[in-house]
């Protein structure tokens, strides 16, 4: 397995302010190919064949989502690019947008054609306001070049809310509401933005589209593992010598990324997938990075031997409690209870009953929360109890 640039192929190569440099790299040829004689169904079939799955964390098959929206017999449909990137330790979407906005625009136009939508939105987090002009410029140049004659792209800025990265909350936010998670079904491909069929995809997912259309779904499906095709862009931070963005073929080992590329030493553990991601102890560092094992949105936070597991898990839970939208009880109350218990441990305390209480709350949250935040929030806690249980037990004993 190795590094390979599909998503990042233009990053650092083209000038993000000049569409001509993109055109020199076969830019908009996939869109042209799509518009010239390929049917909407054929495009969707190609995406299905590729095996591309969502890169925003959930890994839903992209082609299936498009097919559902494409089949809906409705005039008004929407394409949304999720550029909210609020996951802790994730910065790959910013890296991509900064360096290659054109591929994203081309991908959205292809998506629009494939499902029959005439309008798309890029939902850009408030923290990325500095990218607004660059994106507007890119959209403007694509329009002038005649590449957006049948598809309009608008940018909607967030206003600071992690939960708005969740697709249903994001749509509420575009509609001008509080970003609260919706009850589902209906799912966005049947009823999304303003109740119309909508596909919503992560920046990185979309970045793969032009290459898939250009080279064919079969080409893409040759890369990766059984259930994880193509590459993944990882954001590596924490205790490493070379933090940054790396693109690897799916199925590559965590060790290759963390020690081989980011040059980490004396690793104690790695959190994969951001705040709700799994915590992997060093003994398991040879795990493959894939949907079958560990992946999420590709946030890789590395911790060396000097770090305290409880300290970390406590901070992560504090974040989740703060960003919980408050709509469902298990998440709202569960995250608060966990913060309280973990705070006790982090201060050197901990009660006899705390471990079983943590486990009980965790299973209730996983079972009954409304969205991925509450369902996945207990994961780091559960992992820490699994792999570093003695740390908790020692604190209780010392108490």
């Amino acid at each position: 397995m190795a590094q390979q640039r599909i998503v990042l192929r233009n990053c650092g190569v083209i000038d993000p302010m000049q569409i001509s440099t993109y055109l020199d790299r076969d830019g908009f040829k996939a869109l042209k190919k799509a518009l010239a004689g390929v049917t909407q169904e054929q495009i969707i079939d190609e995406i299905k064949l590729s095996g591309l799955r969502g890169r925003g964390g959930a890994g839903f098959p992209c082609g299936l989502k498009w097919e559902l929206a494409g089949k809906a017999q409705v005039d008004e449909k929407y394409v949304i690019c999720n550029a909210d990137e609020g996951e802790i330790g994730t910065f790959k979407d910013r890296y991509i947008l900064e360096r290659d906005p054109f591929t994203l625009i081309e991908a959205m136009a292809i998506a629009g054609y494939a499902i029959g939508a005439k309008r798309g939105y890029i939902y850009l987090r408030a923290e990325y306001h500095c990218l607004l002009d660059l994106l507007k410029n890119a959209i403007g140049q694509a329009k002038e070049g005649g590449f957006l004659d049948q598809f309009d792209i608008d940018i909607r800025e967030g206003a600071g809310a992690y939960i708005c990265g969740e697709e249903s909350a994001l749509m509420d936010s575009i509609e001008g509401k509080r970003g609260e998670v919706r009850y589902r079904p209906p799912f966005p491909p049947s009823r999304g933005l303003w109740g119309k069929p909508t596909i919503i995809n992560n920046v990185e997912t979309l970045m793969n589209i032009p290459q898939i259309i250009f080279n064919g779904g079969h080409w893409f499906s040759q890369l990766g593992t059984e259930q994880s095709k193509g590459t993944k862009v990882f954001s590596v931070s924490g205790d490493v010598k070379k933090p940054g963005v790396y693109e690897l073929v799916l199925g590559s080992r965590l060790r290759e990324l963390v020690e081989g590329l980011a040059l980490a030493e004396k690793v104690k553990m790695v959190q994969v997938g951001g705040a709700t991601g799994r915590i992997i102890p060093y003994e398991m560092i040879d795990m493959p990075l894939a949907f079958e094992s560990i992946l999420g949105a590709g946030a890789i936070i590395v911790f060396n031997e000097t770090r305290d597991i409880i300290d970390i898990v406590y901070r992560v839970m504090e974040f989740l409690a703060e960003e919980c939208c408050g709509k469902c009880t298990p998440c709202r109350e569960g995250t608060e209870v966990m913060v309280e218990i973990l705070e006790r441990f982090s201060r050197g305390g901990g009660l006899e009953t705390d471990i079983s209480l943590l486990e009980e709350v965790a299973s209730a949250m996983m079972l009954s929360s409304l969205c991925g935040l509450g369902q996945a929030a207990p994961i780091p806690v559960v992992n820490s109890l699994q792999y570093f249980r003695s740390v908790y037990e020692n604190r209780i004993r010392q108490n």
Partner: protein
Amino acid sequence: MNKINGEIYMQNKEQKELLVRLGEAQNKFGYLSEKVMIELAESLDMSISDVYGVATFYSFFSIRPQGRNIIRICKSVPCFLKNSQVIIETVEKEIGIKPGETTPNGKFSFHLTNCIGVCDKAPAMMINSEVYIDLTPNKISQILKAHK
């Protein structure tokens, strides 16, 4: 009716402008006063409580007056691993206020925030919409001096 209810999905179409308009007002006045929220509610044909509900949901909106410059230091784990605590303390010392407060001269407001997406260049902060990376206590004084 703003809810999905069987086959009925009705939405006040004006409301979609709310976030955009709140953002504009926030930029112009520095915060969202009661007066602004009432005006927005009237012009978008919404209830005042709905406008208030949206205004208070998002952390980049404020319903209280803010300083001319808003400092947001990242407190999330990757920045924490790179000693964001030292940066927070340095800013506290330099401007003499705690997170959540505004300096008496109205120059700075200061908040802690979550990951701003530059964890490979931690520790980091934002002042207004500008992002500052690879921070050190020395850099902080220079950066703060450059703000009026």
